[in-house]
């Protein structure tokens, strides 16, 4: 069945059966941050509630793709869905990274909030068991439970609840997508953050910097 520009299935090939959009429309991604998953209305980047139907958005900067399809490369919200098989042997190594912390503090300058580097933060090794692995902070009230949970003590205050996502590809490699996180995502010591919603390929040894001090290093078969 044809799928409309925001991901509804439609029997009519001219206008979507669900939202009425022309089936061949292109969505000007620059002007909108996504669509309400309840009513399909476009949403602005800062909207916390849908202007049309009042649905609360989970993250003000995160689009709400239709839950039934992962369309236009927008990562899906975590939830029940057919498991994607993950390539074997990958592990995310999570560290409090002093060098990254220093660069964050330097960039924030004198207005830096009171961000203490955690005095004790053991390395964690998290196997990538699923084809879709979220980096974020757990929220019981919103039902968010990312596999790489940076809300575990010492919680990194600079990490969004749904910060970024690792997706397995068919060829056994991974992509990383910043999910429009407030403080962004950088890689391998770069200063320039990743563009939100644009998947970038990642592989063995790549370092992912999020929040105030967290660096996640991807490794295969034990790694460093």
């Amino acid at each position, binding site marked *: 069945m044809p799928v409309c520009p925001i991901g509804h299935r439609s029997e009519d090939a001219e206008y*979507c059966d669900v*939202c009425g959009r022309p089936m061949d429309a292109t969505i000007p991604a620059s*002007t*909108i941050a996504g669509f309400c998953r309840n*009513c*399909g*209305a476009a949403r602005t980047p800062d909207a916390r509630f849908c202007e*049309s139907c009042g649905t609360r958005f989970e993250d003000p900067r995160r689009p709400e793709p239709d839950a039934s399809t992962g369309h236009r490369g927008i990562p899906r919200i975590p939830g029940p869905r057919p498991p994607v098989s993950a390539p074997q042997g990958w592990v995310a190594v999570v560290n409090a990274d002093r060098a990254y912390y220093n660069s964050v503090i330097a960039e924030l300058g004198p207005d830096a909030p009171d961000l203490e580097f955690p005095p004790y933060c053991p390395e964690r090794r998290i196997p990538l068991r699923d084809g879709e692995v979220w980096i974020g902070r757990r929220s019981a009230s919103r039902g968010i439970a990312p596999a790489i949970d940076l809300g575990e003590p010492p919680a990194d205050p600079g990490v969004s609840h749904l910060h970024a996502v690792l997706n397995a590809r068919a060829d056994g490699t991974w992509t990383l997508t910043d999910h429009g996180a407030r403080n962004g995502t950088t890689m391998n010591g770069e200063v320039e953050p990743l563009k939100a919603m644009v998947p970038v390929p990642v592989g063995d040894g790549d370092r992912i910097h999020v929040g105030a001090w967290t660096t996640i290093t991807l490794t295969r078969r034990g790694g460093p």
Partner: protein
Amino acid sequence: MSDLPEFRISVDQNPYLPDGGRDMHAIVSVEARAPGGAGTGTGAEAAEVIVIDTSGSMSFGGKMAAAKRAAVTAVDVLRDGVHFAVVAGANRPRMIFPQGERLVRADERTRQSAARAVRRLDAAGGTAIGSWLRLADRLLAGHDGAVRHAILLTDGKNQHESADELDAALRQCEGRFVCDARGVGTDWEVAELRKIASALLGGFLDVPDPADLEADFRAMARAAMGKRVADVALRVWTPQAAELRFLKQMVPAVEDLTARRVASGERTGDYPVGAWGSEAREYHLCVRVPAGGIGQRMRAAWVKLVAPDGAVLASGNVLAEWTDDEARSTRINRRVAHHTGQSELAEAVREGLEARRAGDEETATRRLGRAVVLAREVGNEQIAGLLDRVVEVVDGESGTVRLRSGVAKADEMALDTRSVRTVRTVRTRPGPARDHVSEPDQSGRSDEAGRAEQAGPPGEAGS
């Protein structure tokens, strides 16, 4: 049915909405052309019940004699093979022809027998319209698939049963047959007949002069014979999270259909519109859609005409597109404006007359003054003329009026009855892909189509 009319839907609208705009208005015109023209032809299978008020008051002013002539004329118009009956209404309904509670096939012999039975009628008793309608419903019940139609004539208020009984009868009959209602003389209740005709998807009209009944009945029966397909519905799809704010029939008369929605799918609702022959009707719909971004286009509504078997007879799109070009988004579609004015006119007349009856002169003066302005704006000269008999127009521009005293009852009833009858907008350019092309009808030919379909009397009220 092999000779289904050919239906066409065309949509008039300004599809442009400003940033954040959500309400889209459109005029949906539905036109049906029967193959072989509008003549009665062989037509569809039809069943007709003629209900004549025979309460005691009918014996005054020649009403009974006129009603009998009218009923005979209507029977004469029925073509061979149509199933029919004639019913006399009083405290209880009574079969006039045939004698048993059933319909008979029209032919030379049955038409003559019916005429003889009608001529023997005498007026006696009261008025219990609900019970008359229930009998019509029982008579028509076995004729599903046929065009089922009743003609109801009364001269008085529904005094011999309660309003609840009438309402219950209307609920029972709704969707089972179409009923055109006529009030003769000036002792009947406008609101009552309006309710009946509205519930049963028919027209209603005042016939102050009994002499006009015959021609009116002939036209009504002819129109009924011209119907080719029964139980048609407008099916309206609206997108997710949209809301159909209203759907009103505007031509031949204002009739708000919004509350008649029967859900027919997750995002579709059906609105019954009765039987169709060769005729044209217009609908005004307003849909509230989720706001879209500048440049976004969408289908705001998809209107289909569906036959009882589910066949789609015609369809049309109501579109929406958001633009930051104010010249586009602020443009007013003339036909939408025209029909908006006619809706408001009908409302102003009704409220003005209600206030006048209630003795609230201030409200009556204000509302009827507004009606004078609107009648001029939309070019509804019939209503303008009728208003003239109820109010004295001091300044037609501003709507400054004075209530007349000693208004004839017939004039007030005519205005009340006809306030919903609209004038058609005239298209200045043919073709289905029109945009902003209509002009209000300035010719003064009021409700031409309404007359063809609903068979108004030959003379205007009181003229």
